[in-house]
């Protein structure tokens, strides 16, 4: 009986310790486009501030918003803006609109295999290819071979952004192969000489970036830091972090400020994204 009491009290104590609030921990969830950057930010920041713990999970921008609404995350990474429906869900859940912070810039590259002779395409051509209207490379200046379109899962903000801005809101071709992450998409395109796909310019190796023209008459622009920050490269976007205003104080606010400071933006360049122009960094 004595040992039973001892065991029981230990158990209750462990339960108590387990349920105590976790001081100094920040949960970040959301966009796969941002997950590597978010992880690097977490690493560097934790190197400076030893008492803060940050944990990062990917899954897609939609995952971040869902977690924000379910209150299972502090920060939601997103590669697209929040939708009114999602704002509504947040309002129902914690009573306020989430605060939006722009954290960096990104250029979306269109990838083809290195063996593909095509070097540049225009936005209307991209729209026709990805909606499935154009099915053969020879219609856009390549060899006579059928096109394989690679796309992302629909939980991806990259998917949504591409859909909204390049496809003008139309659906992707049903025959588009869906890859769960940009890296697997890149790998698939690199191995498929008739493949075409899209993804953040940060993921570079293995396939070729196409130069993009706004329309048939414009010059073809390559995605580099200069063209993206200036806005001359046609497919660029902000990447965002959303947070519940009630939580935006103390350590979380400090972390957000650090991300948007010069130090945090230096990390952005290492990963391969493009830092915010000076005027947007508060």
């Amino acid at each position, binding site marked *: 009986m004595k040992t039973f009491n001892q065991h029981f009290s230990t158990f209750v104590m462990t339960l108590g310790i387990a349920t105590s609030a976790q001081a100094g921990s920040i949960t970040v969830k959301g966009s796969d486009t941002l997950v590597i950057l978010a992880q690097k930010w977490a690493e560097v920041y934790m190197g400076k501030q030893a008492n803060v713990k940050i944990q990062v999970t990917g*899954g*897609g*921008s*939609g*995952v971040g*918003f*869902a977690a924000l*609404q*379910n209150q299972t995350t502090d920060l939601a990474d997103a590669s697209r803006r929040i*939708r*009114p*429906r*999602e*704002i*509504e*869900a947040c*309002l*129902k859940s914690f*009573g*306020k*609109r989430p605060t939006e912070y722009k954290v960096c810039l990104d250029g979306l590259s269109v990838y083809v295999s290195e063996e593909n002779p095509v070097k540049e395409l225009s936005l209307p051509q991209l729209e026709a290819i990805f*909606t499935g209207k154009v099915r053969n490379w020879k219609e856009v200046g390549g060899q006579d071979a*059928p096109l*394989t379109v690679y796309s992302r*899962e*629909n*939980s991806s903000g990259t*998917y*949504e952004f591409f*859909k909204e801005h390049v496809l003008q*809101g*139309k*659906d*992707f071709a*049903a*025959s*588009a*192969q*869906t*890859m*769960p992450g940009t890296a*697997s998409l890149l790998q*698939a395109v690199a*191995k*498929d000489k*008739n493949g075409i796909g899209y993804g953040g310019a940060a993921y570079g190796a293995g396939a070729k970036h196409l130069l993009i023209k706004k329309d048939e008459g414009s010059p073809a622009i390559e995605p580099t830091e200069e063209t993206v920050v200036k806005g001359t490269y046609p497919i660029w976007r902000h990447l965002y972090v959303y947070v519940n205003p009630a939580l935006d104080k103390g350590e979380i606010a400090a972390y957000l400020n650090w991300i948007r400071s010069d130090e945090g933006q230096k990390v952005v360049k290492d990963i391969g994204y493009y830092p915010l122009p000076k005027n947007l960094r508060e």
Partner: protein
Amino acid sequence: MVVFREMSRTSPQNKRFIGWKGLRRGHTARPLEWLVEKGIFVVSLSTIVLIFLIFLFTALEALPVFLGNTNNSLVQKTIPVEAMDRLTPKQLREYLGLTEKEFAGMPRETLKSLMEVKIETASEAPNDKDAALDTTSWRYLLLPYQWTGYDKSEYIWQPVSQIQKYNIVPLLIGSLKTTLVALLFSVPLALGAAIYVSQLSKPRVREYLKPAVELLAGIPSVVLGFFALMVMATLLQKAFGYQSRLNTFVAGIALGLAVIPVVFSIAEDALTSVPRSYTHAALALGSSRWQAAWQIVLPAAIPGVFAAVMLGFGRAIGETMVVLMASGNASILSWNLFDSTRTMTATIAAELAETVTHGHHYRILFMLGTLLFLVTFVANLVADVVIHRLKHKLEGK
């Protein structure tokens, strides 16, 4: 899976078990022991409770969709924000779509913001003939429809879109296709191996062969999917020269590898349970081992083999990681084996994390889960009944 192996094996000691159990109690029960024995009974009921709970909780989430109570039409009448105070609380609550509890806890600020958001949502509604449709109704879940921007009436699964398209037919066909390929690949191999291991090989070799083949069950499905994605897909594409690198064929073969241990275990058990006397009688009459196995033992074990295939089917249709990584995940409706495909399991795994809890998408994914549960439940039931009858038949003799 190891489970059914032992359940079909009849030990000669079983008959004497009746004695042990019939020996109810030779003395008055001590109160603590009586309590413990009742406790044992209650704990054993947990398996029944769990199956019931699993079905209950997945079906409950999906119930509104089953009953047709959801409506995600984008065209909603909006009330301007200034008119908020002119509505009665009940009207306001219904307009905003809140439950009583949610409404009671909300400050005025939040209600005002919700009304603003409602107007923003309405203004975002596309100028589309389909905006007013309730796409979660069964008609759009099962029948084809010509959406704006498409040339003809098609079955489209595209839940992330201004107009959400929830047709589940491509997913059902995708699951069936991969399962079919997996079974076509694995059943002949597993049955052949089962016949060889239980009937045609030397007994001493059998002792090593059986566990060796069952080791395949020790490979986690994520490793099989990984192997298919990294190695098999490229090899098969070089060998057959088709267009999509990740397709039904690759996923089916990898799935088959996952199913082989299941079918092999149970079929081998069924074949071994056939009394040796059958084989010996056949051999005595002058047949070869193969003839005895093929013409005498296999027909006698057909119920067990059938059960093995049913359980293999259940496993194949329910497998997630392999198809998630190797099938290409494109929701196309086609019977071509070399096209990418999207299965129900991969859809749930890929899309659930991004849904809003209790939203339409969430409920439809749970509905897919309930369907999967029902399919495997029926497959298991059939296999169980068949094995039961097999046991009776063999024990009766």
